[in-house]
């Protein structure tokens, strides 16, 4: 626009008109529910009687309760295992997939399937596979002369079992994304590294890993958030048990809200979940984003 030409009213409001539809829905489905959640966390409400303002009581009650504290601890264990083991495995698998044998091709084609299957079915099938009496896993263990495990029926192995199932489900998707990133690395870089006498370790840490760091960073954040929201596998396979061995945050929220009708307690737990995920994401950005290589 030329200097001196006055902006009309339409010029000023036009950009807002364009972003209005998007902002409207973001407000309706993201901002408003978040605010409502925070308000509810300060109220006592059983879905029927009028809500009563109780201040920080819900938070005090939650943090005073062993089940809640354990659910945070369990969620953290689950998230660390899912992100740590999951991303390492996916990266190694993706690097291995770079080769071009029939086994690689088969793996490439098959590995995405768990992602396509509904989590509900996956959890059901694995519940059967992990059955302590006649499940497939114990049968295999017995063939090799190893003792049976109780899998989801024991406090000691329940969490591990759930993690195995979730890893199995998530591995293909993560690997596919990392594999795609690896395929995008120009082959000349590897040839140059060959001429530079770089060994495999050095090639992986100096070339492959930095080159796929943007994708790894994105996966790190989405996987962390996803892990903190884990629910379906727990709901189907263990219902938080045995005892509270697999009690996680979202399952705790579910229980408070829909089984015990304690909306205030559920909302307070929800706010805690939101805060944990928010803080973690900020920490990731502060600590790691400088190490990520963007083109």
């Amino acid at each position, binding site marked *: 626009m030329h200097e001196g030409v006055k902006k009309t009213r339409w010029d000023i409001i036009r950009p807002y008109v364009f972003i209005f539809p998007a902002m409207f829905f973001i407000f309706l489905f993201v901002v408003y529910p978040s605010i409502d959640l925070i308000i509810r966390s300060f109220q006592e409400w059983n879905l029927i009687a009028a809500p009563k303002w109780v201040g920080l009581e819900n938070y005090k009650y939650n943090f005073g309760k062993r089940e809640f504290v354990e659910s945070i601890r369990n969620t953290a264990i689950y998230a660390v295992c899912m992100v740590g083991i999951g991303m390492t495995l996916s990266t190694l698998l993706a690097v291995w997939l770079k080769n071009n044998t029939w086994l690689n091709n088969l793996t490439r084609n098959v590995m995405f399937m768990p992602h396509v299957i509904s989590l509900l079915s996956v959890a059901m099938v694995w519940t059967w596979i992990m059955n302590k009496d006649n499940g497939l896993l114990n049968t295999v263990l017995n063939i090799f002369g190893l003792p049976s495990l109780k899998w989801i029926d024991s406090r000691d192995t329940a969490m591990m079992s759930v993690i195995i199932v979730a890893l199995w489900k998530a591995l293909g998707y993560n690997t596919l994304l990392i594999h795609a990133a690896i395929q995008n690395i120009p082959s000349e870089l590897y040839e140059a590294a060959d*001429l530079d006498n770089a060994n495999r370790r050095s090639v992986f840490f100096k*070339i492959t890993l930095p080159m796929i760091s943007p994708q790894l960073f994105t996966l790190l954040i989405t996987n962390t958030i996803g892990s903190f929201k884990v629910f379906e596998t727990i709901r189907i396979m263990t219902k938080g048990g045995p005892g509270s061995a697999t009690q996680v945050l979202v399952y705790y929220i579910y229980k408070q809200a829909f089984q015990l009708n304690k909306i205030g307690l559920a909302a307070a737990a929800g706010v805690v979940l939101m805060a944990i995920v928010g803080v973690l994401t900020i920490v990731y950005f502060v600590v790691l984003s400088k190490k990520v290589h963007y083109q």
Partner: protein
Amino acid sequence: MAEIRFEKVSKKFGTKTIIKDLDLTIEDGSFTVMIGPSGCGKTTLLRMIAGIGPQTSGKIYLDGKDISDIPPAKRNVAMVFQNYAIYPTMTVRENIEFGLKNNKVPKEERDRLVREVTESVGIDDLLERKPNTLSGGQRQRIALARAMIKKPKVFLMDEPLSNLDAKLRSGMRTELIELHKRLKTTFVYVTHDQIEAMSMASHIILMNDGEIIQSDSPRDIYNNPKNLFTAQFIGSPQMNVLKAAGNEISFCFRPEKVHMSIEASNLFYCRKGEIVTKEMLGSETLYQIRFEGQSVMVKSLDDNFQEGPIYISVDKQDILLFDIDDKIIPPHSTQHEQWLNIIGGVTYA
């Protein structure tokens, strides 16, 4: 000493044979340029020397030593890639010293070498920068420095100037020539740009379809082409090729060997034609001249001719003849004389 010798080398991609039983010697200390159209196998040859795209069969010798099965890093060669292949996540210094680090060269020695090569290519002030903040010319220099720091016996270059703009390119050409003079190592340089080939090479290898068409000095490649392919590939604008004697003979002359005049001349081959187009290039002018249903390009220092009728003439010694198999008919041979008489006297009388 760094002579490279190919012995019965073949290369297949899948079932497709790119190069078949090729023999070739690249002389020690030469600046050898491999040139040819896309897909002729020139880059494939270069990659075989580097060891990053090994031959399917045959042997490659460096200084008489069989390097066919030696890994790239142990061959004592360095390569500059077409897109430079600079490690984008490393700083300039890390890029240049990566090879030394992998070879466990001590830090002081590394620092000294990095300083030495980066000063010589003029990027010593960029060492801590990341490549994505640098220009094409600067990246080119990093790639050169990375190759130089290894003090290789052979420099391999795969169209290293093709990503630069015209001005930078001609500057880098001069620098590469100087670099070659200074280092006195063998340079093997792949390009499809004949100006690069002619200006830098001490020796040109012209390839087509995986075969060596002609291997000669730039001067001989230009003046004494052994076949029509060479004659037409080298030179800009292209060699004029006229079909004569019922397509049995190709009658050729270079655009700059044609004389233009308003009056008929008494040179051997003189025809009357018409200027159709005129392209001013500054120092010289290109004319397209049509005569007897054919069209030829003429390069002249004189830009005063206007579109319209003109006489063109070519001296006898500037005429090259190729037979029906596109092979040269040796100048000064009796056969050459006979054909000249037929063409000069009958076909275009």
